């Protein structure tokens, strides 16, 4: 049930990209607003017609310019979650979900819809109309509705951007919990790098309708072409750490392949695996293990690559065992230190760079 997408369009919304999404995989389309990422989703759903396109799922062709085939939206088995929720205001939560369930007998539809609403954490809210639900709850109904017709492809169009930050956390968790049962390919459109890193297996960075870079989060974030679009602030790496102990001074000691790391106390039991996000601009390098430095976290690393960027900076890909840390330093420092692939050195992480809200199991 692989989703194959190849799109080309000229005119007001230019597009030129192609990608594949495997069953059960979540692909994030990341890019600034106006980059065409929503248009990609709309093309898959048949809400927008590109100049040249091929959209196919599991051997079923939805759009093929060469044979002039284009199924209307309602004949494409998609589930779509809109940024604006787009719930039917005249129907209650249950009605919104059952309406998307086709011609099955009413009792059967209602039973399935109740189960779906329970799955997204809305048991007891079946009879509420959208106007009487919070933004987060409305988006949960929308997710249930999108899943109601057992779609072949799930499309999420900036689903969290209209939801309050605190509510978002819960929605991320709901979506994560659904992933185990979602067998179809999922495409998530977002401009939030953090969201993409948390929810997606792979990402494609889009600018002006073209795929600048694609791959896993780590791969994309090392790619200066992607960074030009995403902004340097977003550049960072993810490493795995295991909670070891809580120290007396409100710090937690974590174990990594390169040695211990200290972060502000995390509320996770010892033994918990965490993913740490380390912004590239919060990493310094030193040729020798520094002494007399306030930074607590120093890891021995090996330079894997020096990637020149735009302007005065370079991106260093530093190997830490199997993992990789990104460091953003100036070209001048890199030259001065004689940084080149293979050089063993030390990465100094500012303690606060391991931000608390990035700690995830």
């Amino acid at each position, binding site marked *: 049930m692989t989703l194959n997408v190849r799109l080309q369009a000229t005119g007001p919304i230019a597009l030129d990209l192609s990608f594949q999404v495997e069953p059960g995989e979540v692909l994030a389309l990341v890019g600034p607003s106006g980059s065409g990422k929503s248009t990609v989703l709309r093309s898959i759903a048949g809400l927008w017609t590109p100049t040249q396109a091929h959209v196919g799922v599991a051997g079923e062709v939805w759009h093929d310019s060469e044979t002039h085939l284009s199924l209307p939206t309602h004949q494409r088995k998609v589930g779509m979650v809109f940024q604006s929720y*787009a719930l039917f205001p005249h129907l209650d939560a249950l009605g919104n979900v059952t309406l998307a369930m086709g011609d099955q007998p009413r009792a059967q539809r209602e039973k399935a819809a109740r189960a779906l609403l329970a799955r997204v954490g809305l048991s007891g809210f079946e009879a509420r109309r959208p*106007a009487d639900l919070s933004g987060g709850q409305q988006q949960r109904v929308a997710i249930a509705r999108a899943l109601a017709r057992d779609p072949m492809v799930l499309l999420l169009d900036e689903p969290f951007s209209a939801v309050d930050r605190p509510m978002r956390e819960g929605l991320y968790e709901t979506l994560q919990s659904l992933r185990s049962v979602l067998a179809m390919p999922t495409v998530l459109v977002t401009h939030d790098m953090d969201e993409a890193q948390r929810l997606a297996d792979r990402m494609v960075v889009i600018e002006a309708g073209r795929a600048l870079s694609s791959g896993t989060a780590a791969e994309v974030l090392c790619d200066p072409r992607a960074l030009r679009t995403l902004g340097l602030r977003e550049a960072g790496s993810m490493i795995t750490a295991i909670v070891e102990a809580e120290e007396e001074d409100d710090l937690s000691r974590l174990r990594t392949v390169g040695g211990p790391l200290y972060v502000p106390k995390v509320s996770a039991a010892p033994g918990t695996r965490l993913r740490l996000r380390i912004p590239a601009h919060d990493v310094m390098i030193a040729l020798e293990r520094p002494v007399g430095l306030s930074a607590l976290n120093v890891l021995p690393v090996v330079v894997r690559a020096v990637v020149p960027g735009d302007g005065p900076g370079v991106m260093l890909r530093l190997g830490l065992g199997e993992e990789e840390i990104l460091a953003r330093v100036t070209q001048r420092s890199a030259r001065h230190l004689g940084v080149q692939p293979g050089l063993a050195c030390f990465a100094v992480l500012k303690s606060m760079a391991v931000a608390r809200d990035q700690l995830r199991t």
Partner: protein
Amino acid sequence: MDWQALGLSLHLAAWTVALLLPVSVFGARALAFATFRGKALVGALVTLPLVLPPTVLGFYLLVGMGANSPFGQVWTALFGQGLVFSFSGLVAASVLVNLPFAIQPAQRAFEAVPPALREAAACSGLSPLQALWRVDLPLAWPGIMTAMVLTFAHTLGEFGVVLMVGGSIPGETKTIAIAIYDRVQAFDDRSAGIMSLVLLAISISTIMATLALSQRMRRGPVQGAPR
């Protein structure tokens, strides 16, 4: 009081509403959502009866439907009776005259349905007709009701076009508005007064009904649920 004229008027209004209801639903929806060549022209033509003097409209209808016109000839050949100075002709004229009343409020109501809802309906697997029935109509019905109420009331009061196309044949084309004029001409102020009062009462209740409906539309279709 000319009961026959009132009955004829109600009959005419009912026919007009019945014929214009599908036009209102599908025409207004097309004008609200569809993109097609000449949409602006269609929109203008639909609005035209609002500004055109009824006598002018009546004149063109008379010429267009008359026994010498191609349309009139075809009609006569088919039904053995001319369109002008007949009830059928009156219905045809009334339908045309009421197009703006039947379409515009409904069009506004359809336009007020957010496009994302229709997209969501399609993404939920609803065919365009199912989406109309399950999503658009439940949200736009106050506008359609308003359109029908206005059409009904306007038909009862229409004078110029009716006189031009139908003349004043009792039981066939003599509507209540014509009857009032007729009574005034005959210095029968009492009958004219009663009939005017009946029309006034109908008009006031119509306006009140429309106001209530449009208020309901502004509040949105969500009802009953306590906040």
